[in-house]
Each structure stands twice: as C-alpha cells, then as structure tokens.
C-alpha cells in the first residue's frame, strides 16, 4: 500500500511538471500568432518536400528533424560518415529563411569560438562583444565529439538556456534556435564523446542509416553533376516557423496521454535491463516532440501513437543499458520497443470487461482523477 501511495504522488507530481508543457514558454517575451491548420500543413509539406528532393529515401529522418525543430528541441545526428548527416542539417537550415551557422568542431576549437568573444576596440576604448558562431537560428555543429569538453559545454549551455554569457554579460539568442549536431560513432580515437548528461540536452537523436537500393541509385543519378544543395531555396520564413512553433505549443494533451507518457518514462526506470532510465526532462521533451508530431499529422491533440512514434528518437540516446543486458545483445532500441509493446494503453478510464457496456462512458473514472 505504501508503494501504491508513493506511486500516485509521483504520478501527480509528474503531471504537474508536464502541465507546464501545455502552457507554452513565451518566445523572447512575445508570442507569434498561431498558424491555422491549412497553412501549417502547407508549410510543413513545403519544408519536407524540399528536404526530400535533396536527401533521397530519408523522409522519416527529415520529418523527425522537422518535428524537433517545431518542438524547439535540438537534434543529434549520429551515424557513420557519408550517409548525409550534414546534408540533412544543411538542407533543413536552407529551406528556412533564417540565419545558419556551421561550426566544424575540432580538438583545438575554443569555447569563445562558439560563443563569441569580447574584443578591445582601440577607437572606442571599450571591449565590444563579437558574437560567435552560435548566434544564428540554426547552428550546425559538425562532429561535435571532436571538440574538447570545455567547448562542448559552452555550446550546451547555449542550447539549454538560449543565451550566451560572456564576461558576465548575457546575450539572448534569436528564436527559433536549434542546434543540429552530428556525431560520428566510429573512429572515436582522440574524441570527446558526449557524456550522458549532455546527450540529455538533445531532444532527439537520429541515426540516418543507409538508403535503400532504389534511393541510392536515384541519388547516383541526380547528384552527379552538382550539389543538390545549391538548388535549395528557402520555402518558409523564420516568422512562419515561429508561428508553427506556437501552433505546436497549443496542441492539446489529454490526461490519458500524459499518463501514458509518464508511464513510458517510469517503465524505463524500472526496467531491469536499463541502468539509467529516462529523466523527467526527457519526459517533457518526449511530450513536446509528440505534440509536434501530432501537429505535423494534422491533429490538434496528441495520441499515444505520437508518443510511440517519437519515443525511440527521443529516449534511446538517454538510457543506458545494464551491462548484463548489453552483453546479451540488447540495444536501447530493442529495450524501448519491448517496453512500448508491453505497456498497456489506457482505455479512457472505461469499463471494458464486466458486462456493462454502457456504464463507463457515463461515469469515466480514472485513477488519477481519484487521486487528485
């Protein structure tokens, strides 16, 4: 009974935390007007079409990248070299009419290269701030694991707080702000892999994977002469993106979906296969991503399907396998899939079972409703 009560409190606490999600954080103090459904759909279609002309056979990855953008998260692209990580990041950046910076991370890159530096101006005899590469709407961080931990940390602070602090002065970053980092899982020698805590800042991690045969042939045909990137032009403005983000924030999340989201997180924490489960922050990001996914699907409410859809991308890079599980061949992917396939979907607090067919709807009772 003791454990039961604690469970209930945890759930309600988590719910309070999640309810902050539905009350969107204002962007830079002002909130752009939300977009209506039709223009949202049109805009998202334009972006996706544009990205898909450049990257063949990776529409899922493209959609997920857009999801992360609209959910105000940051994206970690992790895969072997040459599968189009950077291309995806660049294409996405180009399709949006906004400032894009690219940082190639190297071991000798300094934090000030990222954030900017105060330089002494001889004429004005004042230190003036030279913004670093991070001052852009979309920042592409290539091979982020090649930079030193200090430099990584500088970027990560920006990612989390959307601001840069240099010499005691804070500079706000533009909105929308999104970091798309790529990371190479092989050839790890001399690199500084992102620690778990920092990986947690990325909303989602996508493995590009190899294209299928048809897509690869298509790529060989179309991309021989010139870089396809050259043909990409912006299809939406940054104001459009801001409006889309507002729309996503207004997507409705029902109690059942919140419960489901929380139960996914709790299941990862309780799984014996995992050493580290998903953090509460990841729950927040999971739900945000689900909202963006729902909006991209043309809905104004989140389904458990949305949560399931983005769960792997959002959670897989945050959880750490137990050593025993890892040695038996489990992967974060397989563990997550196992959890999702076992986790029951709440049936709207309804009386399935018994003989009463009509009674539940008249008096829907959920456990959480009682506990509050």
């Amino acid at each position, binding site marked *: 009974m003791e454990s039961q009560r604690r469970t209930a409190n945890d759930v309600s606490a988590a719910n309070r935390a999640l309810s902050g999600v539905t009350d969107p954080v204002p962007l830079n103090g002002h909130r752009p007007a939300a977009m209506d459904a039709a223009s949202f759909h049109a805009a998202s279609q334009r972006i996706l079409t544009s990205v898909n002309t450049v990257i063949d056979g990776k529409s899922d990855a493209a959609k997920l990248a857009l999801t992360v953008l609209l959910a105000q998260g940051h994206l970690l692209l992790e895969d072997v070299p040459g599968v189009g990580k950077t291309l995806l990041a660049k294409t996405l950046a180009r399709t949006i009419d906004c400032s894009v910076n690219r940082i190639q991370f190297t071991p000798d890159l300094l934090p000030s290269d990222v954030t900017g530096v105060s330089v002494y101006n001889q004429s004005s005899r004042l230190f003036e701030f030279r913004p670093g590469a991070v001052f852009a709407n979309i920042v592409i961080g290539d091979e982020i694991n090649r930079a030193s931990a200090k430099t990584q940390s500088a970027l990560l602070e920006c990612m989390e707080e959307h601001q840069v602090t240099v010499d005691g002065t804070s500079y706000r970053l533009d909105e929308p702000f999104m970091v798309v980092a790529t990371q190479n899982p092989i050839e790890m020698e001399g690199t500084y892999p992102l620690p778990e805590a920092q990986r947690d800042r990325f909303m989602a991690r996508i493995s590009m994977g190899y294209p299928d045969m048809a897509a690869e042939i298509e790529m060989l045909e179309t991309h021989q002469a010139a870089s396809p990137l050259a043909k990409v032009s912006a299809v939406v403005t940054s104001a459009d993106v801001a409006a889309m983000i507002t729309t996503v924030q207004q*997507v409705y999340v029902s109690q059942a979906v919140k419960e489901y989201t929380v139960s996914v997180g709790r299941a990862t924490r309780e799984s014996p296969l995992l050493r580290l489960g998903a953090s509460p922050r990841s729950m927040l990001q999971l739900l945000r991503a689900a909202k963006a996914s729902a909006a991209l699907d043309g809905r104004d409410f989140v*389904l458990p399907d949305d949560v399931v859809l983005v769960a792997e991308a959002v959670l897989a890079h945050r959880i750490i396998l137990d050593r025993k599980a890892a040695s038996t061949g489990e992967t974060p992917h397989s563990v997550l899939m196992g959890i999702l396939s076992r986790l029951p*979907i709440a049936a709207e607090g309804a009386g399935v079972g018994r003989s009463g067919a009509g*009674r539940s709807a008249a008096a829907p*009772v959920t456990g*959480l409703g009682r506990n509050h």
Partner: protein
Amino acid sequence: MTLAPARSPGTGQRPGTYAERPATRPRVGAYPWAMAAAITVAVSGAALSLNGVLRGWGWYWAALTTVLVVSFTLAALRSLRAQPLLVTAGGFLSLGMILTLTFFRGSSIAGVIPTPGTLGDLDRLIRRASETVLSETAPVAPNVGIVMVICAVLGLAVILVDALALPLGMPAATGVGLLALLVVPAMIKPQSVGFWGFSATVAGYLMILACSQWFAPDARLQTDSARTPGQTRRAVLTGSIALAATLVVPLAIPGFDQGTFPQGSRLNPWGASTGLNPMITLGNSLRTPDGSGRITYATNASTPLYLRSVTVDHFDGDSWGPDDRDSSRLPMAGRIEPGYTVLADEQLRLVTAIDAGSFNSPYLPAPYAPESVRGLNGRWTWDPATLTIKGSESTTSRRQEYLVTSSVPKLTASVLARSSAPVQGIPDDFTRIPGNVPDIVRTTAGTVAGSAGTPYQKALVIQKYLRSAEFTYSLQSPVQGGYDGNGLSVLADFLEQKSGYCIHYASAMAVMARLEGIPSRIAVGYAPGRLTGATVTVTGQGALPEYEVDARDAHAWPELYFQGLGWVPFEPTPSRGVVPDYAIESAAPAAPNALENNQDLVPDATPAPAPVPSATPLPAPGGGGSTETGVPLLPWLLGAGAIMGIVLLLAAPRLVRTGIRARRLRSQDRGAAVPLGWRELLDLGTDYGLPPGASETPRAYSARLRDALLGDPDGLDRDAHRAALSLTADYERHNYGRPPLPVPGTLAENGGAPSAKANESTVATRITAVELSLRANAPLLRRLQAAWIPPSITGRLGRLLAAPFAAAGKFAVRTAKAAAHSWPVASRPGARDGVQQ
C-alpha cells in the same frame, strides 16, 4: 480482494487502465440476498406446480431444500464478492453436495463428498428415473430416482436463473428458465399448472425483476430511456426463442410427432396423427373432446366388435405397460395360430374389414382372435400367446386397410361353467401374481370371490362386484384423487375410492382373477363403436354395415383364460362397452334358452351411440388450461424443458452479444455513442479473431483490423474501411482530443462536433458497414464462431475463469515481496543500487 493493490508497481501507476473494476464495483449489500430470496420463491413456486406430476407432497421438501441451499450459496458467495464464474461454480458445487447429502448419504464421505460408490448409486437412480420417465404416466409415484432428477433440475434452474439475472444482466430472460419448469406440469397435468404454482412463480419472477431494478448497477447507471426498450426487445427475443424451441423440439425427438404417444402427436404442429399406447394414454384419449384417430370397420358379426390392439400381461412394478414380446413374435405369413388349444364345439367365424385411418400405432387393432390378416403393407409380426399383431421396425397401423378373419368359440354360460379343468399350457406370464399386491386388493378379492366355486363363477362375481352401484364411472375422479394411471398402488386407491374408468376396472378384475387362480391379462383397444350408416362391400360377404370408433371409444377390458376355451373377454366397466351374454350372471345359469342367446345383446347397451356422456370432460378445477391437455407424458415434457434450457444455454453467448451490441448502439448518452461504438468495433474484431492487444493504440488496432479482416480498401470494402477509419478518428478525438467545449480546435479536421443524434446513427451505420465487410471476408467457420460463440463473450468468460488464478499468483508475488522487504539486510538494498555503486 480487489485487483488494484495486487498489481505490480510497474503497472500500478496507471490505474486508469483497469481501474473500473474495483472502482465501480457497487456495494454488495443486500442485493444478493434479496435476489436469492426472489429466485427461491420463483423456482420453488414453479416446483409447487409439479404436484400432480409427482404424487403427493413428500418430494417437495427435498426439492425445497435443494433450491434453498443452492440459491443461498450463490448469494453468500456473491456477498463475499467472489468472481461471477466462481459464484456459479460454487452453485454447482453446492448443488452436488446437497444432492449427495439427500440421496447418497450412505455412499459418500461425511455425507457430502461423493465417492465412486456414489456414482454407482447415481447411475442406479438415473436408470430408475429414466424407467419412470419412459413407462409411467403422471402422477408418478415419487420414487427416489425421479425425485433426485427433479431436485437436480430445480437446482440447475436456480443456477441458470441466477446466471441470467446477475452476471449476464438479463433479468427478463430468467422467465425462460421458469417457463421451462412450468411447461412440464402445464403439458402433463390435466389441471395445467395450477393456481398456486403459477402465482408463486409469477410472484418470484416479479421479485427478480424488482430486485434487478432496485439494485443492479446497470440499472442505476443507465438512462431510463435506454433501458426500457432493451427490456422489451429482450422480452421479444426470449419469447421468440421459446416459440422456436417448441417448434424445434418435436423435430429433434423422434417420439414427438410419430409413434405411440398421443401427447407427442399433439405437439406436432404439422398435422394430426393419433396413436394408442393404451396403458399410458387411455385416460387421455377418453378425455379428448374431439374424436380423433377415427377407425372404421365393417364386419359380418351380428354383435359389435371389440377391436383389440395390445395386451398387458405383467402386473409387476409401479406401472404397467404393454409387453413387446418381441422374442416370441413370428413374422406374419399365412395363418395365425393361437398358442393354446381351443376345444369348443362350435366356432364363430367373422370377417372384418378395417380402415385404420389416422390411428398410428405399431399395434394393429383387430378383433379377437385373428386367424389371418390380408391387405397389410409393411412388415408385421404376431405373438402366439397374446395374438397381438405388431409392426416391426417402423411399420405402423397408419393408413392401413386390411381384412381380418377371426374366430371365437361360441361361448355360452353353460360352456363356461363346464370349463373347470385346471389350467395348463399357459405361460407363466399370465398367472404370476405380483409380489406387492396391496392388501386391499387381496382382501377384496377374497371377500368377493372367495366363496365362488368354479373359475367362471369367480369371474362372474368379480365382474358383478365391479359393475355394482358401489362403483361409479368417472374420468375425472382419478385425476382429482391423484390415482390417475395404472399400477398396483393406483388399483388400491381405486378400490378405496370406487370411482374410475375402464383401465381401473379392467386391471382390478384382472388382478383379482389372478389372485383367485384364473390366468388373466388386460386387453386394450376399442369398445364397440357406432354405425356410420354406410356399407362396405367385402368379397364373399356382400355389403357389410360400417362402424366407426375414435379416441373416445378407447377401452380396456380383462381377458380371462378358461381351459379349452381360450381367452374370454369380460366387461367389468359400468356403462361402457357391451357385457357379453355369457358374462351375465343369470338366476339360472346354463338355462337352455341361453344357449341360443349368444348373439343377443344386453338390452340397455345397444351398439349405436355408445354411452359417452360421462366421458365428456369436466372443466378441471383450478386449472388455467383447457382439459384437453391431458394426464401423462411426464417424461417428454421434462425433456422438452431440458432441451429448451439447453437451447437457451447454447444461444446464450449470441443473445448476450446481441444484447450488448444493441445497448451500445442505442445509447442515448451524448458523449457515450463514440466510445461505445469503438468498443463495439473492438468486440467485432475480437469476434472475428483479432483481439486488441493491451499495448495497442486505437490507431494501431484499427490499422491491423482493416489490414487483416477487411478486404480491398479500394474495392467493395471501401465503405467498411472508411467506416472503420471514421470510428477510429472519432474515438481518438473523443478520447484524446480537447474536451468538447465551444473552443474549436485549431487543427480540427472537421468543423464542430456533430450532434448527438447524428453521432448515434452514424455510429450504428458504420458498425453495420464494418460488420458486413467482416462477414463477407471471413471464412465460414469464423463467421459461425462470430455469430454463435463470439470470442468477445467467451473471452470474457475465460478471463473470469482465469481471474482466481491470476489473483492467486499476484497474491503470491506480493507475499514474496513483502517477505523480501521485511528481510532486514539481505534484500533491502536493491540490485540496482548495487550496480550504481
């Protein structure tokens, strides 16, 4: 025990999933007890009406005990909140135990636990009951076998009624279970159900309905408008099933529309046919107001003939029936030779042309003693001892037209008086005195005939005694006195009451004759009939007058054996038939003129219109039914009731499923239509073999359903696909979408929420579309399964079945965990902590 605390913490955080079980379970309170009382009243009330099917009231206490024990066991289990299936199982268990305690105390452990010996006893009792059922006529003596069967049936009825009323939530349908009980007396007893039985049953039924109205959780949560039409429809459904059962049962059981049971024949809705198994149904035939089973015959005899169909030779046992004597029967070929010698001086040879018409019996009616029968169709056999003619296999007398040549010795009083030689050459069957002859029969026989000298005189005084003014002919008094039927105990009652009809007189004379040393048997057939006025031309005989007999002329009379003369019929029944000349005790026996008087008739018993006034039935007292629903045939209707019950049980899954669907689709609740439609879709999918997984989202399930069970999305099944898609989308919006407030969703696909009415109808049409497509795309077996044993219902039962085990398992897990927690050092730091260190 509720499920919630037993759930492991892993799923315990999501109480919404199955929270409705503990949460909405109503307080049990007095409901089970009130319902048990109502069921007890109803079932034991219905049992009241079985008095008259069973003789007396001695059996009723056993029945009442059974009903009480079973129904209150159910109530007790229910008030302990046992799982519904457990409750029903407990009902069966208590039924078994009370039956063991009542009937097999000797062979069981502690009176209630059966042993292999009990099974042997059970087998014996069941055989006894089936003998009773097959051979006796109501009211039967309440022997232990039939009482046990009745108790078992009543106990099962309690369980059935209880199951219908509570777990299945169809209180109105309990009427069928009660009706199945009432059908038995209604069809068997002349008084029909009887006032008290009927009133008590109806009172109990109303109590059941009232209880479910007052207490049932269903009734409380549903809107009134939704419930009332549901009950109407259920009532209509129940009624039509009962009707269908009455039509189906006669088809299923061979004895019902053919053969020898007039009661069975009456159930045949497709035409009249009558038969005569006289011992069983004679009283019934006599009470029939319309003359069915008309037989016409033309004869050259100057006296009206008795047509004899069958004889009863064995007077042992509780009730008598014709003996087939199949072992001694010979195939019909040429002459029929009696198995005894007739040394009469003069033989009377008669020719009779008989048209059996619709009379349907394996035994052929023929005048005694047949020498040859011509013109028969089918295979016939005859028995040398009794000279009865019987069709073998399925040959019956129906539509037979035949010519019987018969011969009887010319009998006169003097001839009979001279026949005092000791009886020889007669099978033991006709002389054996049953062991259990009641004292009153012995003493009466001794008083009446003890002093008479020759067998003929003995016969005469017995007949005279029975025809005396002390005895009255009545078809009704045996029914009212509870001794309708036959058998030695009936005979004792008859001799006390001195009122009865031919079967009683005939058996009384036959038994008393045997007691006095005269071989005897009871002949059953037809008393002389009426002239029709027509004539029939028979080859070699010219035109012969035609007579007719029908069911009202059914008759029984004793035949006594006299050495050298053969079997001689007597007529002890007052006001029926014709007393033969030789059987009239004259002041001067063997008077010379009597020798020539053989053909003369008793003046007041002319053949034409047979005296039937006393045979017209009187209105049965207290009976709701008409009197033509006659006496016997307990067994068939017991069987009918059982079969109705079985049919109901077999149809129960379908009924429940249909009821659930109707209730869902009819729901008036604004918000309820969509989720109910969704649940119906889930159940439809389950029925067609695709149950939803617990972790499956509505969208995923819908996709799987459309993929696996619906056909081509672009072809014929496009509508079904669309319907399923819209059901899913509506449900998702209902379940996960913004609550229906005036704020329209920014991304809403369709405008506002449609009105409730539109919702409801579209949900119903969509479900119909999906179901049509499911049915069209499913293989035959799957279709049948979905229609008759829908997995959505049986699965529910299965879950109930598994629930105790699951609960036990969870309990074990919890206990183990609690033990681990209380273990101080070893298990307190969990494995995970260890890893993190």
